[in-house]
């Protein structure tokens, strides 16, 4: 089910993802402001929509500075890695029937692998900065993302068991009668928590934690290299929202409206929810975060997997 013009899809997805990430920066600031009884950026263009563009112009004109004490090439490479891995993950996301770049039969594993590679970006950025705060941020990122990846993968396996395939298109098609959020509610909750931790979003933004570590792993970054981390984070949110939609909420499936619109509506809902999480929740302590991950989330996801497997074996075999 690959479109007849793969190049067109490729360019559309690339530009779409980057544009939505840019729009998300604006949307996040407006929504945060809404929930804090403010207005947010509303001056540049209609409703402040051009704010991201103005920010981009500003970032481009900033001095592109590499600290003299930094490990220069690693320092420059690190922001590129996060963009690369996140954009690569979009290769396997099925937006609508026919709108998918590559219909891999191991799409779920590919997504997990790419999100694991993303850790390198953060750790290398923290390491190459040769700055103690950046290094602390990088170390936190390594520990946090590795631990949360463990049950991120496990929480998905229930869905994979139900669909009987690692292929995301098959998973969406398997949700013809019922969204997987119903039988896999625990898996959905676990995956969402892991997804927030993977994108280093606010309740779990310990690698950045600006109140303790200056700006964490990107303390030394400025200009467009910082912009890459920034956009990378927002594309990451978009990616995780897309994956939640595809894996648990029936992807493009829905009545009346065209598939791509359904996909968009569902994804936007989760994007909004991610921003609400940021607006509402404080950041846990690092040891609490690790304890949560290993002592609560991991056993829960294992139990979820076992029960799902047992039920599948007992009733649907």
């Amino acid at each position, binding site marked *: 089910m690959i479109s007849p013009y793969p190049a067109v899809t490729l360019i559309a997805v690339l530009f779409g993802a980057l544009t939505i990430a840019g729009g998300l920066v604006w949307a996040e600031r407006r929504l945060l402001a*809404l*929930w804090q*009884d*403010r*207005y947010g950026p509303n001056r540049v263009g209609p409703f402040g929509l051009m704010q991201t563009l103005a920010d981009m112009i500003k970032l481009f004109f900033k001095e592109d500075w590499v600290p003299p004490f930094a490990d220069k090439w690693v320092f420059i490479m690190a922001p590129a890695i996060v963009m690369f891995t996140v954009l690569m993950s979009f290769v396997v996301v099925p937006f609508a029937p026919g709108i998918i770049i590559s219909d891999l039969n191991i799409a779920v594993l590919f997504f997990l692998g790419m999100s694991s590679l993303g850790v390198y970006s953060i750790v290398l950025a923290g390491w190459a900065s040769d700055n103690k705060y950046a290094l602390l941020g990088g170390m936190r990122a390594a520990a946090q993302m590795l631990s949360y990846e463990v049950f991120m993968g496990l929480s998905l396996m229930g869905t994979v068991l139900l669909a009987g395939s690692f292929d995301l298109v098959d998973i969406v098609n398997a949700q013809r009668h019922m969204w997987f959020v119903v039988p896999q509610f625990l898996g959905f909750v676990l995956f969402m928590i892991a997804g927030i931790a993977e994108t280093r979003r606010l309740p779990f933004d310990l690698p950045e934690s600006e109140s303790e570590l200056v700006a964490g792993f990107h303390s030394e970054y400025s200009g467009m290299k910082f912009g890459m981390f920034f956009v990378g984070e927002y594309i990451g949110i978009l990616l995780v929202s897309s994956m939640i939609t595809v894996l648990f909420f029936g992807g493009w499936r829905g009545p009346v409206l065209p598939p791509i619109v359904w996909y968009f509506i569902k994804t936007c809902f989760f994007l909004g929810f991610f921003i*609400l*999480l940021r*607006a*509402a*929740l404080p950041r846990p302590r690092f040891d609490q975060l690790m304890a949560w991950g290993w002592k609560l989330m991991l056993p829960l996801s294992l139990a979820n997997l076992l029960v799902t497997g047992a039920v599948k074996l007992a009733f649907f075999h």
Partner: protein
Amino acid sequence: MLSIIRTLWDVFLHAFRKRVTIQYPEQKAYLSARYRGRIILSRDPEGGERCVACYLCAVACPVDCIALQATEDSTGRRYPEFFRINFSRCIFCGYCEEACPTYAIQLTPDIEMGEYSRQNMVYEKEHLLISGPGKYPDYNFWRVAGVKIGGKDKGQAEREAPPTDLRSLLP
């Protein structure tokens, strides 16, 4: 866990609250009459300068942003030859207004004094002097002070007793 969901819901409900932002250039916040903004020099009800160039404001100023030079006119009234406030230093503390014995220097509820050039932040006397009496419409220092100036001798000020004749032995 429940408290987290409760927090999320409470924050979400803020979407329907009134926003507190004042959209500044279009809407303006109400500044009270006592607001400590741009400093002015006022005049007495007769239109003369109130400032008697006593330097108390310059002494009271914690950031030394006030500079002036006293002089006297032909009638014996003291006034500042120049009066200069560097608003790029001023912290709008209002100590000058408190120190002023003649209500000449006053702070006003005006805060819109942005400039592109720092030099433009230095206000001279012609920028500071206003045409009216400011917050004290009836006060006239030279009419109540027992100081002799041209056209007003000792003992002629309001509620001032006639001067004692030092050469008289009568009680």
